[in-house]
């Protein structure tokens, strides 16, 4: 099986220039692959760099050395050498990302927050909003809330908006950072179902999950991040 995500020997440190230039190592020697239709879970203590690895794959963080290859269309995109527009295109069609905290544009209705990635792919606005509504309903967000910006929602509601936004546009790779962290049992189950459906549809998923039960139900493989922790 050709890997959808192929990381080999990736390394990252933060150089804090404002604090005298001290280097904060994040990860090193990160190597693993994620294939289509499987869900790989990154495990390890907090602070070990799991979220950073996800961000590196999404192009949100740079990395200092190593290689990250993402399968996109017919070819493989090498993130280190990719032009900004290639990464933008990748994010539109190739990778979805459910971050740990919803970072929505203020004043935009949650329905539109969710529908936006689908509209960017070219789907007509009303169709996209219709599907966004369906997904929100499935995630138990009341219709009365759809017009409101999510900034006033509870943590759990915000996370569900975030999940809907990440899952709505069909993309071959999904990155999930603590997708069930603030959710109750009912909604956890909904998210697990969503993940299973996408797996069956061939989506490659890389997730950070702390909840043992959820992890058990979705993970095909576990990658222990502690082995990538950079020496202090």
């Amino acid at each position, binding site marked *: 099986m050709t890997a959808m995500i192929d990381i080999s020997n990736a390394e990252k440190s*933060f*150089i*804090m*220039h*404002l604090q005298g230039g001290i280097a904060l190592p994040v990860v090193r020697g990160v190597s693993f692959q994620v294939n289509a239709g499987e869900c790989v879970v990154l495990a390890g203590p907090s602070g070990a760099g799991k979220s950073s690895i996800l*961000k590196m794959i999404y*192009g*949100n*963080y*740079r990395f200092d050395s190593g290689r990250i290859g993402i399968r996109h269309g017919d070819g493989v995109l090498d993130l280190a050498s990719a032009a*900004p*527009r290639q*990464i*933008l295109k990748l994010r539109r069609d190739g990778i979805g990302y459910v971050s740990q905290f919803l970072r929505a*544009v*203020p*004043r*935009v209705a949650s329905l539109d927050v969710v529908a936006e990635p689908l*509209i*960017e*792919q*070219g*789907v*007509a606005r009303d*169709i996209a909003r219709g599907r966004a509504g369906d997904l929100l309903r499935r995630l138990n967000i009341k219709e009365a809330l759809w017009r409101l910006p999510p900034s006033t929602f509870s943590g759990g509601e915000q996370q569900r908006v975030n999940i809907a936004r990440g899952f709505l546009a*069909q993309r071959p790779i999904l990155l999930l950072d603590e997708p069930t962290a603030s959710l109750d049992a009912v909604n956890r189950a909904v998210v697990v179902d969503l993940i299973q459906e996408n797996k069956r549809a061939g989506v490659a998923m890389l997730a950070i999950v702390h909840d043992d039960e959820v992890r058990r139900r979705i993970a095909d493989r576990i990658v222990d991040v502690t082995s990538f922790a950079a020496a202090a």
Partner: protein
Amino acid sequence: MAEAVTTTSLTAEDRPLLIAERLGKNYGRITACREVSFELYPGEVLAIVGESGSGKSTLLQLLSGQLAPSAGRVSYRMRDGVMRDLAALGEAERRFLFRTDWGYVHQDPAMGLRMAVSAGANVGERLMAIGWNHYGRIRDTAATWLERVEIDLARIDDAPRTYSGGMRQRLQIARNLVTEPRLVFMDEPTGGLDVSVQARLLDLMRNLVSELNLAAIVVTHDLAVARLLSHRIMVMKGGLVIEQGLTDQVLDDPSEPYTQLLVSSILPA
């Protein structure tokens, strides 16, 4: 799954719209900016951020052909697909470009509007300049655009002298977009406006840029504006480009000391 998908042709998107090559401007011994190079693609929004004196405003003037470069060049892909050096364009061509394929949004809307002339005429002027000769059609098109920038249609015959700052800015945007330009230059578009007015304007700009697949170059000192509007960012200091890349990447993972300083200086909301 079959669905109604409209995609722009890949070939058009794959060719750069604007190319800056080692662009520089100096006044005697004073260097306003130097060694600026980048390529801008259709639909991309590039933010140029920096503090005052960074050279960002000069750069915008160079990129929009209003200043001649001391070094390097700017090339633009015309509607016929041919890449042209801006410095080689005749004045008539450049002025025509400025009125049709480009937009320029000034920080002070009074600079980009005819203050004593009605809103409808302000928006319709570009159309009349390219030969539209039917009053009814001009007015209807102007009205459509006023609606799009959320200006009450009842104000179509009022001069922008009677408008608030936010309305004037929205009118300026409508005036620029009526000829469906492919590239819009913006110079501190939300500067000087009240915070709530800024917010509304940014939302509007964000929507318009994505609906119309506009490419834009936005000069701003406000990183929040850059984060909201742009895909890519260029950080300038002392006339040089310190760092450039994807906006979220540069702002979340800044590598240069100056960029880190800028990012850390933002007061949290």
